[in-house]
């Protein structure tokens, strides 16, 4: 396949993925918006008033970037894991396996589909947050690049999860037992500098800490960690997960007999 043909194949997968989550928008776009709105009301408005300031920002302003990032993470992940597992379950993955598409086109197409949903939900949540907090963006490039990189990373995670999954139960194990705890402990609701030294050290191995802080830096201009280090960690994780996903597809793990 030449580059033009590969691009056509890639855009076909992306269009199909976007068509899929838009077709079921009541399941894919509305529930996360409602959930995050509840976080704004309960944690930001009701409890946040009693917590007071974190640095120069109200508690509501402090948690908004983390909550936006949380919605991007969970939606990019769940889009790819459910879509790719569904293609396995219905055997429509065979449509792709018999085609001449290179593996990176398949991975790229699904990942961009996940990024599209992550950003769509992130945009809805951002609009909602305007009802609760004043939002000014310190650095649009850092903000946008951190959202996109995070969505890529978790889309890849969803892809790997879907490849290994043998049943619908398997696609909820990682989000429930890994993703949710990491997100809640990733500095969405607090600054990791508020933690004792030991737990600050433990937080350093949580990749979500770097994404939440990188994004918060883009919006508020404050971060618990160096922004350069945050970029380095996110890109490193992307490279590792892409290599893993590519290897799985190349050898047909969980896909071919």
């Amino acid at each position, binding site marked *: 396949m030449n580059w033009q*043909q590969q691009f056509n194949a890639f855009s076909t997968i992306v269009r199909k993925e976007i068509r899929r989550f838009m077709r079921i928008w009541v399941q894919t776009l509305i529930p996360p918006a409602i959930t995050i709105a509840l976080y704004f009301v309960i944690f930001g408005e009701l409890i946040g008033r009693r917590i007071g300031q974190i640095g120069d920002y109200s508690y509501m302003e402090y948690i908004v970037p983390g909550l936006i990032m949380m919605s991007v993470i969970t939606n990019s992940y769940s889009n790819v894991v459910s879509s790719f597992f569904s293609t396995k379950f219905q055997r429509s993955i065979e449509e792709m396996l018999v085609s001449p598409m290179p593996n990176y086109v398949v991975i790229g197409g699904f990942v961009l589909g996940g990024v599209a949903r992550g950003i769509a939900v992130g945009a809805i949540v951002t609009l909602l947050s305007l009802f609760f907090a004043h939002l000014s963006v310190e650095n649009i490039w850092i903000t946008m690049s951190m959202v996109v990189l995070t969505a890529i990373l978790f889309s890849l995670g969803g892809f790997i999860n879907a490849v290994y999954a043998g049943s619908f139960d398997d696609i909820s194990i990682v989000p429930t037992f890994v993703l949710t705890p990491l997100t809640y402990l990733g500095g969405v609701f607090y600054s990791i500098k508020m933690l004792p030294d030991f737990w600050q050290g433990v937080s350093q191995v949580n990749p979500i800490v770097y994404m939440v802080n990188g994004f918060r830096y883009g919006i508020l201009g404050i971060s618990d960690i160096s922004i350069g280090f945050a970029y380095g960690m996110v890109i490193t994780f992307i490279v590792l997960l892409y290599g893993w996903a590519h290897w799985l597809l190349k050898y047909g793990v969980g896909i071919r007999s």
Partner: protein
Amino acid sequence: MTTAHSVTALLVKDLKKTYSGGFEALKGISFEVKSGDFMALLGPNGAGKSTTIGIISSLVNKSAGTISIYGEDIDRNFAAAKMNIGVVPQEFNFNQFEKVGDIVRTQAGYYGIDSKTAAVRTEKYLKLLDLWDKREERSRMLSGGMKRRLMIARALVHEPRLLILDEPTAGVDIELRRSMWTFLKELNQQGTTIILTTHYLEEAEQLCRSIAIIDHGEIIEQSSMKAFLSKLDRETFVLDLGKDIEATPELEGVTAVLVDSHTLEVEVSKQAPLNAIFEKLTALDIPVTSMRNKANRLEELFVSLVERKR
């Protein structure tokens, strides 16, 4: 000069497949399909037909061996090899929630076809397979026969030179089966090489010019259909008699079996004229009201060949 039939469409060499549980599905099979051919790949259930097709179409990993499609090795030149092949699998394998038109158009995209051309080809093949009116329907709403035709349209949308159909008429009514035969014959006449697996041996005999029989993971026969059928030296006919008889009549040089009082089976050499049988029965005052082959010719050979190997 190179003619269509001198070009090799598919070359399978020493293909082996051992599944993770240790089951040896293919024991080093080799066969060749010439361009423009219409080949039947036959075998009993579990013989290795679907595994062979699965490996050719990259749905199953091979254990050993090589495959080339129109000269392109599927390991070394994966994309070029895959561009030449279209596959219609045995099981329905499309997204049940997608629209018929979207399924075919998306498949075109997977082959790198731009959206404008994909739309034109989708219309062409859905019309050819009588599904254009269903293009906006979700695929799960189609009947079994329509789903089979949808898979054929999908396999053709990138206009492959080699089409592999794994039991395409399974569970399809006779009228639709015959219209599919006509479609496949025309497709073959237009130059598409076709490999067909089927359990309907009448279908293979009607459509195919060459044959390969696989059993227990080994190719036990490969030849032209004509050469294969010529191996059949005896045929059995069923005669419906115009009156009831009590004993099997003596017919010299013919093996006769009285099935019931008004049905007689006679097994004769292919070279022997049938006139002699009728003359003898007429002499015995036994009228024959109708006659038919006991079994399809290919079926007889297939069964005898497979049973001989066991």
